[in-house]
């Protein structure tokens, strides 16, 4: 099966680093957990961390 993440990763490269980073983490969490509700819960932490890092 094709590793879509690689194709997606390449396509996301044109976006600013925090956007790219968050989008990739969202995909990885989605592939691991499979349901948007549980992914959303974890994503909130990721977003907070990314915004703090950016500061």
């Amino acid at each position, binding site marked *: 099966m094709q590793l879509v*993440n690689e194709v*997606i990763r390449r396509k996301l490269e044109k976006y600013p680093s925090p956007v790219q980073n968050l989008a990739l983490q969202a995909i990885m969490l989605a592939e691991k957990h499979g349901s948007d509700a549980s992914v959303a819960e974890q994503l909130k932490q990721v977003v907070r961390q990314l915004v703090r890092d950016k500061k």
Partner: protein
Amino acid sequence: MILETLTINNFRQFRGKSTLRFAHGKKNVTVIFGENGRGKTGIFRALIFCLFGDRQLSQDELVDDREVHLVNNGAMRDSQQEKGRTVEAGVELTFKHNDCRYTLRRTVQGLWHNGERHEEGKEVTLSIERPDGNCTPLRDPESIKEMMGLVIDYRVREYFLFDGEKIEHLTRASQHQRTEVSKGVRNLLNIDGLEIATKALKHVGKEFAKELEKSATGELARTMKRLNESTAKRDTFDEQIAALAADIQKAEEEIEDLEKKLKKHRGITELVEQRERLNGQIRDIEHEMQDVRAVVRDKVARTAILLCLDPIRSVYEDIEKRRKKGEIPPEIRQDLIERLLSERKCICGREIRSGTPEHTQLKEWLRRVGDPELSDAALEMWRSLSGIISQEETVRSNAETTLQQFGRKNSELERLRRQLSTVTAKIGEDVRDDAIHWEGQRKKAEAAVRKKSVETERLEEMRQELDALIRQLEAQKVKLEKERGIANEMSARHTLVENARQALVAVADAFTKEARETIAAQATAYFQTFLDADSQGLFDRIQVNNDYSLQIMDNHGNAVLANISAGQRQLMSIAFIASLAKTAADGDLLQMPLFMDTPFGRLSLDHRLRLIDNLPKLCAQWILLATDTELRRSEARHLYESKRWGRFYRLVSTPGGETEVEERSTEDALTLIREEEEGES
């Protein structure tokens, strides 16, 4: 998934246990050969039953589930003598998937009760052996279903395991089937995760937006409020659209069910089948009209220019007249005349006094040259108008051709609809009460589908408008934040999430568009290699629509799916499947079998040989269930010479009327399979 063995026990025509081993690797073709009624479809049924628990195949549409017997008849007859005795039938499939070996086993139990034969599913087990030797046994049907869904998506099972004569249905799927298949394809392309990620970001974005609204003040607070309200409204639309889709699906299933019942009534069977055919043709034409409508929109928009051609010509001719007279552009530059007048000197050095004829002439020229910018603009307009006028013929003829094409399709659609309504009326005239009742129910369900489809379209349009408003409000929010120097953490979170969500949507759109284009290009190339020399020049390309339905264009850009033969549709569908598999495997061979019942029934000899030449190279494993009329010695010899043929099984009838599976060498096959008779093609 690469199939290794299939063991059947007391299943359908096969008494006792029989095992088939499937070829894979370099020699990846397995042929299961038998005359009609020997149990080829029984093998196909065994595979589908084992993988998904389905008792029925798509060709069983006229048969009730209870009428499909899986337990061997002979074994059941023998058991009738002993009261309470049950007979177990089962199928065991072993296959490899992602380096693990899977053993899936499903059984069914047959028994007699009050003189009637009954069958019930007994158990299903799955064992997964990992490369390190560890084994996971599963017994819970739901967990097994979930696990098998990861191996092969149920929605695209018919792409890999199919009846060759039915596969052309791929090109004639209903809206609901197309939606399901489209979901299956997205899963096959491994972009389901992307969708879940996008939904999750949307969810998080909404929460952050609410927090932001609470903390904002003034204009920003009002913008955030409108943004959140609009987003909530859009979600409501999405829910309503999804509910309508579910209703449409339910009504379509009801229609299918009623069609099956109606078909059983002798006398109207033919009419119901005719209606089905007409519905298929109507779907094809409607689909083609969608494409033509897009072209019409594009080309007819350009014809608006024709409406104002008279004033365009008049302005053009006026400028042209002035141009010819030398007024535009002026022969003498304004700055030169002004200089001569102020210096009162001619270019030859002679003095020009006020009141002389030379002075008067210069004054007259100055009046005539006017504003040079205006003159340049007029010249530019003259060029543009000249371009428009020269395109008149092309625009007119393009629009005419497109509108005629649309008109033809529309007339064809009208004709088919009239036929459909005649056939439907005839069905309604049937004398039997139950048939009239079913027909009435069917009409109601059809009306519901129509009504809900219109409602869906209306909601989708409103949703699009709302989407545009949301984008506008988001831009306004960013602008306001910038203007007021708001850079708090809450706002940064919301912006980041929204940007990431939009990035994922854009990336998913680009990815699926590219995937569709790649699949279409590859499918076109495969299709051309499958076609005989005479047909190759007739088609330009296969088009893969947004919902992964197919269309084929001829060399003049016309959509011709409705007019190609069933054999060509079959080849087109196989080309699409092979291309989809290649795209899903990123250019490699997708580790999935192509399991085909009646693979060549509708194909000419040339097309059969071309499939034999090409298909083994395009799939990881090809398993054919062929009868003696479609796999004859010429096809067998061709397959043998391709050096891809790994295993050969013959289904042989026993004196008791049952079937045995006999493995023979591929060399033997060449003598066992009959020569074609004279006149056969």
